[in-house]
């Protein structure tokens, strides 16, 4: 009997989606696809806007990692107006990025993935959320909330506001660090470092509690992440692609993204997928985000996170093919960002009032990238002689992962096919959340119907099961 499972919507991910799973006559899972169901049209309607509006208007693509859009747009403007930022501005932008990573990784681990890991997938649906977690593990949940709060406060101090920051401009930052803010940030970063350690230990313990959990969803694929030399860098550097056998396939600058990456529309989804392409036009999937970044990096540049990275690679493999290990990788990055924030705030250069370079000649085309919490984010602008946007192209983190997400859904469904529908659907949602997909970025939205399974045969629904 051929049947089709529909999860609608998938909750506890950033954005909205629907999952379709086709089951063939042989009883095996055929295609599995994540359907992204909303479209907003940023690439068209920003045409004609003044280029300097991009760092603030593009933050509205995503409320979860607006900082990444803010920074990558500002990096584009630096190139467009021939204005390399002074050192203090670069430090402040990186601090903003660290704050945003701390916020995003902390909220993901505890509000989105945490309930699965700490309450267990068999806990009641109505309690399997942040509020349930606050009841079951109040101390840990409060620490995680505090960590997210610190991350967001760092962004607010440096970026002017927590969600949708405003201070990164062409040539640097609009606002230098005051002595008072510097002192506050030092205290916050030190506290974040302490909490990040606690959270890493707790997260690792929860992941290792069930020996089968970590190895449940293997996926052997290419990884992509940003490096300076061999060191992880979340703000700038070369993009490295590492093959599943550990060899380096490619290193390239973001400006050459169109040579190496290709987007493909899917008939049933407003989210396009991105694939690697070679000179012959052949394509391959790859993955981005914390797991991919740690798979590409040989070190992190900060000592505590280096030790945590070695521990991670020992337990999960190098490169790790375990999707669930992404939750662990996220916590290693959390520690790295807190450590890096502490280090950058010790550098007196961050207090310099010189935070902005005056613009020079206009370059009509600018491309930049940054590592967003969920992976590589690319902006590409063309402008006219008055610096009005002629065209814009955005390639966002979740798009890179769509092909891998679909394969993981298929694998998860195959493992659970003989289980109850509830277990099957829970397992598939768990698999998707490993990627922390952010669908407002890749254009988002779906229906708000209760989760249901439609069983299809010969084009007709023969049974509908609801959770």
């Amino acid at each position, binding site marked *: 009997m051929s049947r089709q499972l529909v999860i609608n919507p998938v*909750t506890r991910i950033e954005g909205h989606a629907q999952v379709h799973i086709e089951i063939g006559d042989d009883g095996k899972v055929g295609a599995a696809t994540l359907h992204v169901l909303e479209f907003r049209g940023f690439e068209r309607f920003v*045409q004609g806007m003044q280029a300097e509006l991009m760092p603030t208007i593009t933050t509205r693509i995503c409320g979860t990692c607006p900082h990444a859009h803010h920074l990558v747009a500002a990096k584009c403007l630096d190139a467009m107006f021939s204005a390399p930022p002074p050192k203090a501005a670069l430090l402040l932008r990186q601090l903003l990025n660290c704050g945003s990573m701390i916020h995003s990784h902390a909220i993901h681990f505890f509000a989105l993935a945490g309930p699965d890991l700490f309450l267990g997938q068999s806990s009641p649906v109505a309690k399997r959320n942040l509020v349930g977690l606050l009841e079951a593990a109040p101390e840990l949940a409060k620490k995680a909330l505090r960590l997210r709060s610190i991350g967001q406060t760092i962004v607010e101090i440096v970026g002017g506001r927590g969600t949708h920051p405003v201070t990164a401009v062409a040539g640097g930052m609009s606002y230098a660090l005051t002595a008072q803010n510097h002192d506050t940030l030092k205290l916050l970063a030190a506290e974040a470092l302490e909490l990040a350690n606690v959270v890493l230990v707790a997260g690792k313990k929860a992941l290792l509690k069930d020996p089968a959990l970590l190895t449940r969803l293997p996926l052997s694929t290419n990884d992509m992440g940003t490096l300076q030399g061999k060191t992880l860098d979340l703000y700038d550097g070369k993009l490295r692609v590492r093959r599943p056998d550990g060899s380096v396939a490619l290193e390239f600058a973001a400006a050459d*993204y169109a040579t190496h990456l290709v987007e493909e529309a899917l008939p049933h989804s407003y989210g*396009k997928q991105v694939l690697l392409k070679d000179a012959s036009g052949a394509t391959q999937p790859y993955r981005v985000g914390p797991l991919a970044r740690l798979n590409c990096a040989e070190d992190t540049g900060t000592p505590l996170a280096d030790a945590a990275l070695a521990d991670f690679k020992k337990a999960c493999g190098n490169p790790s093919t375990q999707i669930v290990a992404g939750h662990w990788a996220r916590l290693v990055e959390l520690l790295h960002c807190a450590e890096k924030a502490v280090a950058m705030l010790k550098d007196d250069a961050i207090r310099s009032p010189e935070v902005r370079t005056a613009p020079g000649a206009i370059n009509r085309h600018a491309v930049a990238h940054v590592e967003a919490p969920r992976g590589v984010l690319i902006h590409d602008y063309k402008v006219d002689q008055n610096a009005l946007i002629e065209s814009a192209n955005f*390639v966002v983190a979740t798009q890179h992962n769509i092909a891998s997400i679909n394969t993981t859904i298929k694998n998860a469904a195959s493992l659970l096919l003989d289980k109850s529908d509830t277990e099957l659907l829970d397992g598939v949602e768990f698999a998707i959340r490993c990627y922390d997909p952010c669908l407002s970025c890749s254009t988002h939205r779906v229906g708000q119907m209760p989760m249901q399974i439609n069983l299809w045969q010969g084009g007709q629904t023969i049974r509908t099961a609801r959770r």
Partner: protein
Amino acid sequence: MAKVTVSFEWLSGCSGCELSIVDLHERLLAVLEEIDIVRLPILMDVKDYPKAALGIVTGALRTHHDVECAKKMRASCDAILAFGTCGVYGGPQGSGYAHAQSELAETAFVKNPTTSTHFVPDQGVPKLLEEGVLPLDAAIPVDLYLPGCPPHAFYVFEALKSVLHGKPPEFGEHNVCFHCDRHMKHTEVSALRRVHEGPVEQDTCFLSQGILCMGSATLDRCRGACPTRGMPCSGCTGPSEAIVLEPNRDIRTEIATRMSMMTKIPKAKITTEIEKQAKTYYAYAMASPVFRQKPTFLLRRWIAQQGAAR
């Protein structure tokens, strides 16, 4: 005391509004003691529409599906709060107002330089509204409005407190200038200047410096985040109370009047510049009838005059 039941729905938006509620930080725990959240798609696995005293809706109407969801919220909630600039005015994607809906999809899917395919997804994806983007009250009656992109936690907390305790909020209807310490002064500046073009005086009003700042025509639900951090206001909360209420007042006339009084730049020149750059200066509330119903407002024509509906 029984807790107040609250249901959330998320239409076309970015999730920034949801996070602005989490940005209540420690105060969030106090709010959670007074409310019982029965539905919150980003954080909870509940997928139907339970009855609630208060429905908080973020995001604008983009697809036919959004309209259905809005109606289900109205039917299941005693009161509806439109939360954030998207729900109240349409938000940034409201800028799609300047284009045919097919153009938006073609740019992303058919004519995109790094996309190898050339079709618009059409299998089982919700259809876009023919009108483009609409604010929430185009589909359902709305009881309360809290614009802001997103609203600052201060206003979120005050708004929730006032709803929970049945008292009007005490934060007033100020514009962004209320929070800004820059001095308005007469200057000899005779030309408009863009913000990226170089050093900005930190103590002087942007308008005095010839830089367009929307602060005096914009509601303050941000607490003045931009002008207090070296950036002119881009109008993300939407128009000030005066502009909402007075049919003959508009962003461009308000700003041009003030700026021409402080500088040597003629008023007509400023008005024309804002019209020419309508995409930039009406970026957050273009979809709102608040502007469209004004007798002097010709936004689609201004944008079309810039060529290729740019």
